């Protein structure tokens, strides 16, 4: 059993805990929204081809090497030593491009009563997003 986390999601998978994250079936899609198609790994309108000649490194039957794919995309993958929990993070290129577009990245977080709020709830208002901490 391997837990796969992203910034917005958490999925329990039947993968084997290892230093490489092989995900079967639709686990990759469930965790990240990316899925393997004939064109390569695809999400929304984007497809990343499996490097020619390296198919065996990335695909094994109905399993895909999610950690290798994540590295291929230039995104960080953090894991416990045993590989029983993985965090698939966003990459610097994607983050820098997103911020350079000046479209404020959306997020959903709870208030102190547990009620969820999204940035998009505040459309048609000017928003000062400001941080503080108890520490």
């Amino acid at each position, binding site marked *: 059993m391997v*837990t796969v986390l992203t910034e917005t999601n*958490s999925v329990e998978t039947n993968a084997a805990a290892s230093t490489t994250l092989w995900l079967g079936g639709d686990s990759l899609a469930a965790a990240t929204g990316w899925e393997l198609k004939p064109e390569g790994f695809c999400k929304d309108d984007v497809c990343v081809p499996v490097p020619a000649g390296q198919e065996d490194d990335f695909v094994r039957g109905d399993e895909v090497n999610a950690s290798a794919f994540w590295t291929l995309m230039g995104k960080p*993958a953090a894991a416990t030593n045993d590989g029983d*929990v993985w965090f698939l993070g*966003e990459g*610097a290129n994607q983050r820098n491009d997103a911020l350079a577009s000046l479209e404020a990245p959306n997020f959903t977080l709870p208030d*102190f009563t547990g009620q969820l709020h999204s940035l998009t709830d505040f459309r048609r*208002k000017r928003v000062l997003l400001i941080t503080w901490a108890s520490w």
Partner: protein
Amino acid sequence: MDANIEAARPWVEEASPTFVTLIDQNHLLSSLYNMVNVPQAVWIDEQGRIVRPTESGGSIDILREFDFEAGAFKPEATERAATAKTTYLDAVKDWAVNGAASQYAFEPDAARSHVPVVSDAAMAAHAGFQLGQYLASQGRNEEAETIFARCREQHPDSWNIFRETTERMEGGIAAGEEFWNKVMSLGEKQYYASVDMDGMP
């Protein structure tokens, strides 16, 4: 920007703000907006567009002007900090009233040039930090600590990661020896980056 809801709750209850206060235990906003300290701010207009990217939210770098013997900041530094805060708040109010016509709202090209660029190492630190937070929530504290130590090395500019994961004093403030050592080793760097705004001291 608090991993511990109960540490933050008394502050919110005391202030009883009219605005929405959210709890960001995993420092998601640090990752999304390339934030490294508190307070930092982003101005977002009615169409969800950034008109002022991540910047110091009214605070300026006076930490090294703390007089340890007196137990307070030097008066001149305190005055400068107060001026900075007032200037920033007045700018926010001006924008609240005038919107895009405010001199403080950047045009797109200017806004783009003010977006702080994030590194691969810093994004790796954000991934590790969020993994560590999950492990800590599962009681796997030793593993979390090891991961947090690596995050601090990967993203040394992040005071959010540093102060969330290092020693706290009795009042809950991360201002112990480790913190001051890191402050004193800033050299030319600023604890709070200067804000590009008219009137900022």
